[in-house]
């Protein structure tokens, strides 16, 4: 009767096992520092240009959208505050995470999936290497380290994008007021949730990508399927977690 629940529950169980093994491997020898650095380059540096671009435009569009609503209340001076809070609390972490999910959860799933179907993962095990330690842990560490950094960059560039719209373009406020407003409106609570979210999202992106990659079966078609599933599942969980984390912080 509850057979339809079997597959999602098994997947969740696999996810928890993988998360546990990948996390405990961080402190276990041997350490694959080179792989971590390589993944940081791929995930962090590789995602930088697109993060900057999206960050800029999301801040700009936020200021544009708010300009009308604020002018109705004669509060155009608050544009800096609104842009900063929305970006730092929500837009920065979620948009960056969705970008990295689209770029890297898929990349990880297809890379590991191809390795699985060409027996490279079996070969790795046969040669005495733990694929979780060699493949999953470095990707998890790299994502957990770079995603918060990318988010901070996206937030800053976004606030700058808002500034470009608010001051030189629409003349809603003065330069000084914009930056003052943006800076003062941020509380520790905002910064804390703005940094906790990317850290949680990093776990989701890296582990979902790895899980779907490692589980791949059925040749090249299977790799395609795993890639799509990884992006979809990671994106959905990003939204679920942002809701849960926000719910906790709203009450604080």
């Amino acid at each position, binding site marked *: 009767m509850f057979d339809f629940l079997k597959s999602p529950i098994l997947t969740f169980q696999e996810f928890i096992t993988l998360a546990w093994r990948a996390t405990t491997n961080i402190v276990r020898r041997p350490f694959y520092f080179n792989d971590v650095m390589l993944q940081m380059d791929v995930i962090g540096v590789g995602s930088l240009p697109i993060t900057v671009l999206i960050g800029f435009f999301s801040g700009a569009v936020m200021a544009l959208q708010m300009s009308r609503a604020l002018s109705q209340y004669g509060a155009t001076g608050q544009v800096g505050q609104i842009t900063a809070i929305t970006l730092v609390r929500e837009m920065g972490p979620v948009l960056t995470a969705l970008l990295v999910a689209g770029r890297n959860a898929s990349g990880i799933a297809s890379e590991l999936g*191809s*390795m699985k179907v*060409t*027996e*490279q993962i*079996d*070969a*790795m*095990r*046969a*040669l*005495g*290497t*733990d694929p979780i330690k060699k493949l999953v842990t470095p990707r998890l560490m790299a994502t957990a380290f770079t995603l918060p950094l990318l988010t901070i960059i996206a937030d800053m560039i976004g606030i700058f994008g808002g500034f470009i719209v608010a001051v030189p373009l629409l003349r809603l406020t003065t330069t000084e007021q914009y930056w003052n407003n943006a800076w003062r409106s941020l509380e520790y609570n905002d910064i804390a949730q703005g940094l906790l979210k990317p850290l949680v999202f990093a776990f989701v992106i890296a582990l979902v990508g790895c899980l779907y990659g490692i589980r791949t079966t059925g040749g090249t078609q299977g790799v395609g399927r795993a890639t799509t599933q990884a992006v979809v599942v990671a994106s959905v969980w990003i939204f679920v977690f942002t809701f849960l984390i926000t719910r906790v912080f709203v009450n604080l």
Partner: protein
Amino acid sequence: MTPGSTDRACVLRLEKIRLSFNGVDSVLEDISLEMWTGETLIVLGAAGAGKTVMVKVALGLLKPTSGRIYLFGQDVTDFDEQQWFQIRPRIGMLFQEGGLFDSLTIEENVAYPLVNRSSLTPDQVRPQVEEALRFVELGHTMTKFPSELSGGMRRRVGIARAGIADPDLLLYDSPTAGLDPITANNIMSLIIQERELRNATSAIISHRFQDGHMMANFRYNPESKRLEKMPEDSPMRARTRFLVMHGGRIVFEGSERELDQSRDPYVAKFSMQRSIH
């Protein structure tokens, strides 16, 4: 030391192995076999007979549903992954498609078992890697990536990697699958050379009866550096056994002569004699 004078020890023993995925479809059914030092085992069978799955069970890459596995005299059935990592370096394995790591160069691929197991650096193992690659006549490909090599070359690199750490047991999964007959013969002659030079215990999985025939009847002559027919009284003949698998079961076990005489129509398909006539 002449072949046969070594103390014979059981390298691999499978006892009543059964494996089924999702509890219904049985992939392996009641598989029992033994491999002794210096022996050559040739596992024949059509695609989907369970040959690869059986090897993966022997290597601990798949867990059997029931039955026991013994490696080098040790019961390894209930080993966890960490314990398997300790024992697997004693086994050299050539995967169906070579199983080379795409992101590593040929040199790094071949050096992997040595660098991974010990604290040696790639520079320290380079002479060994060069020798192993020269053995498979691919000394010039050190800096290339697997994607730049042909299927047969990748298989040869796989052979070099499987043998570099001097394993006690060599497993070759379909070494000639998907290759043209000339390349396939070259690969088989390399495997025969490897067997003679190391006096290694090896198992070859194949769907081609020619591979089994070559393993059972030819030996490598280091002087002429060529393969030659094995004398009728060679002890190697007695230490070469054939297995035929069908539908997850072992349907035949014996010497080449017994294989040729088998009345089973499925087994007879893998007999060199009857396939020719």
